[in-house]
């Protein structure tokens, strides 16, 4: 597909992005989809049209605090919740460690977390923490790509019965240098 020719193509790119994004997309995010400059007014017009295209379909395009997202219409919720009946017992180690890093080192980017843990951050991990409303985006680091900066929320403190981060267990750890052959 060649870049941006007609309205239908532009709308399709937006639809594909919105249907596959784990998080709501802001107008800034959406302008980044296109190599050519995209006016915010054009974007808003396209989003309006897209919203109308989906008017009678399974998803609705809604605007929330951090941007736009597709969500299943309320009438499907009774069906969808049957898919995940069992409650989640425990967070994985990846989730807990990511949370700990964000709590102790905030504000951090995904890259920072990857550097500390030595493995790639699974998008699902960030999603779980954001859906729990324990972690959110507080800004962007001004480096190429403007990666999001994550921090813990007030809600996280509430849930852990803390008044401030300073009440987290302070950490003092001595770790011997461990020469590892990176083969």
């Amino acid at each position, binding site marked *: 597909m060649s870049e941006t020719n007609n309205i239908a193509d532009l709308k399709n790119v937006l639809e594909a992005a919105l249907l596959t994004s784990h998080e709501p997309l802001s107008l800034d995010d959406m302008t980044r989809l296109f190599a050519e400059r995209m006016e915010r007014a054009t974007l808003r017009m396209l989003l309006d049209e897209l919203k109308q295209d989906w008017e009678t379909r399974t*998803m609705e395009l809604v605007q929330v605090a951090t941007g736009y997202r597709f969500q299943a219409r309320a009438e499907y919720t009774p069906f969808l919740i049957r898919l995940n009946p069992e409650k989640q017992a425990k967070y994985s180690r990846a989730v807990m460690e990511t949370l700990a890093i964000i709590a102790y080192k905030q504000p951090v980017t995904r890259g920072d977390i990857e550097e500390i843990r030595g493995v790639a951050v699974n998008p699902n991990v960030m999603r779980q923490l954001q859906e729990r409303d324990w972690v959110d985006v507080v800004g962007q680091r001004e480096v190429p790509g403007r990666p999001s900066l994550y921090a813990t929320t007030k809600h996280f403190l509430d849930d852990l019965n803390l008044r401030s981060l300073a009440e987290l267990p302070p950490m*003092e750890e001595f770790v011997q240098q461990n020469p590892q052959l990176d083969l």
Partner: protein
Amino acid sequence: MIETPLNAKIKGEAFTELPQDLYIPPDALEVYLESFEGPLDLLLYLIRKHNLDILDIPMADLTRQYMIYVEKMQAIKLELAGDYLLMSAMLIEIKSRFLLPKPAEVESEDDPRAELVRRLMEYEAIKLAAQRIDDLPKVGEDISVASAYYRHISEIKPPEVSLDDLAEAWRNVLKRASHYQHHKIGRAELSVREHMSIILRRLKADKLLEFSELFDIVHDGIPKLVVCFLAILELAREGLLRMTQQAPFSPIYVQINSHE
């Protein structure tokens, strides 16, 4: 480099000079050697570069060229994995078995190279397979999976997390992060980090604030004001804040550093 001229024959052709690509500038050598995944990878490289027949490997040449690399690795004190030395021993052993006269009764002995050839071929097949797998489109890279939202009804109880769980997770992170030789996060630093997040959130909402608005002089005690100030300095140091002042003694304005 190598002083002694080579006196080798490959496929019947005299081979008196090291091929060009065997020469590597000394400073680049370390990086270069690290690009090999081990002795088999290095051997395969030598075999392919010199067009040797993998089914009829000239052991003397291969061993010599392999040893040149291993010696260079040792010369620059590159941490040399024992695997490379083990392979040297194996190559020399195979070579020597060719030199020894064979007693008549074991004449039907297998080619001493057979095991090496088998391993090289198996490794090369895996190397290519790995490349092919790497080239396949993958979820998260080239494949984007539908992931629209639906309103969860909170009958699904989220997992319980205690402070101990969190501390445990953090200890695990530190245990593994080998570059943390000495890691220490005290309460003071945490307060600063927390204030950094708080300030970023406020600036996201208000866009532009006067410096003094960031401090609640009436309610916050001195320690908190200091922490807040340190947080602003840290944010500025990390390039996350922009502070502007039109003229000396005029108000200082703080905003999120952005390109716009």
